């Protein structure tokens, strides 16, 4: 009987190991949970069903196993190599794949949208015979189509970066540079400028776009309200750096105010006084 028992020892040890681990796991759960929630909150859900077709089994396990950032990086490098070949369908697929895998880096969204809006129309026009052969109307149509794709893609990005001024700026630039739509571009710049993370130039460009539309009164009001908010001297105590002062360009804004005042023929005594 004795040796039968000792033969069962490995089983007994295995059972003990599993039991102790399970009890530990259950006991430690309340201690672990806050940390796990913290980690979880930083990780957007993986929409695996939309990815599975494009990825192999191993890559999927890698994604689930916590290697999202590096898998996305790999695919971004791949995106760049198909981009160099002007391969439109592949580039478009990889751009979307990268942000589906890891939507957190803004960099992917910005650069993906630029490829779609600025490079792909070129490729299409070249493919259809070049700028000289393709009629202007057709070129315009292609620009509009690609811009639409880019804008849709950028709007999707707000789901992950709701407060990103740079995304609004990206949208504004597509309207401005590709669609020559000053009204929509201005609106996007205004939204960007309203966000705390906005670069100083967003507010300045908004005013410029208002002026281009002939909305001088609005531009004047905007600039007058903007000027006092701009840093003029570096102050380390307040966290104002020399670089910020330089990029805020308060003197330039004042120049613009004077220009608008001239355009609006504002009397000397009613002019803006900083």
């Amino acid at each position: 009987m004795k040796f039968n028992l000792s033969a069962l020892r490995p089983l007994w040890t295995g059972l003990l190991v599993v039991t102790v681990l399970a009890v530990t796991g259950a006991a430690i759960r309340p201690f672990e949970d806050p940390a796990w929630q913290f980690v979880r909150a930083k990780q957007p859900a993986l929409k695996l069903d939309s990815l599975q077709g494009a990825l192999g089994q191993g890559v999927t396990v890698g994604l689930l196993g916590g290697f999202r950032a590096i898998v996305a990086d790999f695919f971004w490098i791949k995106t760049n190599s198909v981009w160099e070949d002007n391969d439109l369908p592949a580039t478009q697929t990889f751009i979307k794949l990268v942000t589906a895998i890891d939507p957190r880096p803004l960099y992917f969204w910005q650069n993906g949208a630029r490829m779609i809006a600025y490079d792909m129309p070129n490729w299409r026009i070249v493919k259809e015979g070049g700028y000289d052969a393709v009629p202007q109307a057709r070129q315009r149509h292609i620009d509009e189509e690609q811009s639409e794709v880019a804008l849709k893609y950028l709007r999707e990005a707000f789901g992950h970066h709701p407060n990103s001024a740079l995304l609004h700026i990206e949208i504004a630039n597509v309207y401005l540079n590709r669609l020559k739509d000053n009204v929509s571009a201005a609106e996007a710049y205004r939204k960007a400028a309203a966000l705390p993370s906005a670069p100083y130039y967003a507010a300045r460009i908004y005013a410029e776009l208002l002026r281009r539309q002939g909305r001088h009164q609005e531009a004047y009001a905007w600039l007058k309200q903007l000027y006092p908010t701009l840093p003029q001297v570096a102050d380390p105590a307040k966290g104002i750096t020399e670089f910020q002062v330089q990029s805020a360009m308060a003197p330039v804004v004042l120049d613009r105010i004077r220009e608008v005042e001239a355009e609006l023929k504002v009397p000397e005594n009613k002019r803006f006084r900083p």
Partner: protein
Amino acid sequence: MNTAFPFPLAGRPVPFSPGRLGIVAGNTFLEAVRQKLFNFLLLLAVALVASAQLFREFNFGSSELKFISDFGFGAMVFFGSTLTIAATAQLFFSEIENRTALTILAKPIWRTEFIFGKFLGVFAVVGVFCALTTLLLLALLYQRETALMNANPEAFEHGRIIHYGDLVLMGVLQWLKFGVLAAITLLIASFSNTNLYTVVMGFFVLVICHLQYLARDAYGQVASLPLRLLVRMLGYVFPNFQVFNLADQIGIGEGIDPGIFLRVAGYALIYIAVIGGLAVYSFRNREI
């Protein structure tokens, strides 16, 4: 040979000795270091530097730093896991296969001291690995960030974008995770017969620990009760390795909360103690 030793006679209690544990740990560390470990580290360092150079080709701008940090930590996680499992299994089975375990366990030493000594030796080896790779990564990032800052100041409006302190904390967390992994490998080794089996099982458990959160998530969605209990059990039996990825976008973006960091570190240490204890229990029954 006539030195008289005032030696304790048989029957005098032999208390657990951190000193002996340290001697075993030191010897284990020395064995690893005098083997090919440092070649491995050197290779990794070269690979890291080379891959960092590669990203320059793409002209990613300030995002190059993200790529360097992602790939650097990816390499650290991958090679570190491999090193941990392989070194633990190798350093354990070299004792068994070369019968040095016989010689050492025939001395007045507790098996607890032996097992935890082995653990600490491996933990130190992996610690050196983590420290070196983290330092190398920090140096690479700092050097590239400085270069990029000079080339493109607009992208660094608010100063440096890399949180170097967080990178160090992440290195520490990976080290602790490898500690849990080493304890798991030692537990497997304590009852397994071959090095290969231990390594294969070690990797298997590593993958499960990385995916165990899926079982936790799936718990509510499983309909049948027995399967549900099994899923719940899986979630409890295996430690959650995902919790160590406190900053997935490493060193960039939001910082690491010190409270959460300490919590995760505590989580690792508790697991090391429990799994190490189980390894000791299993090893005490092992017939050498």
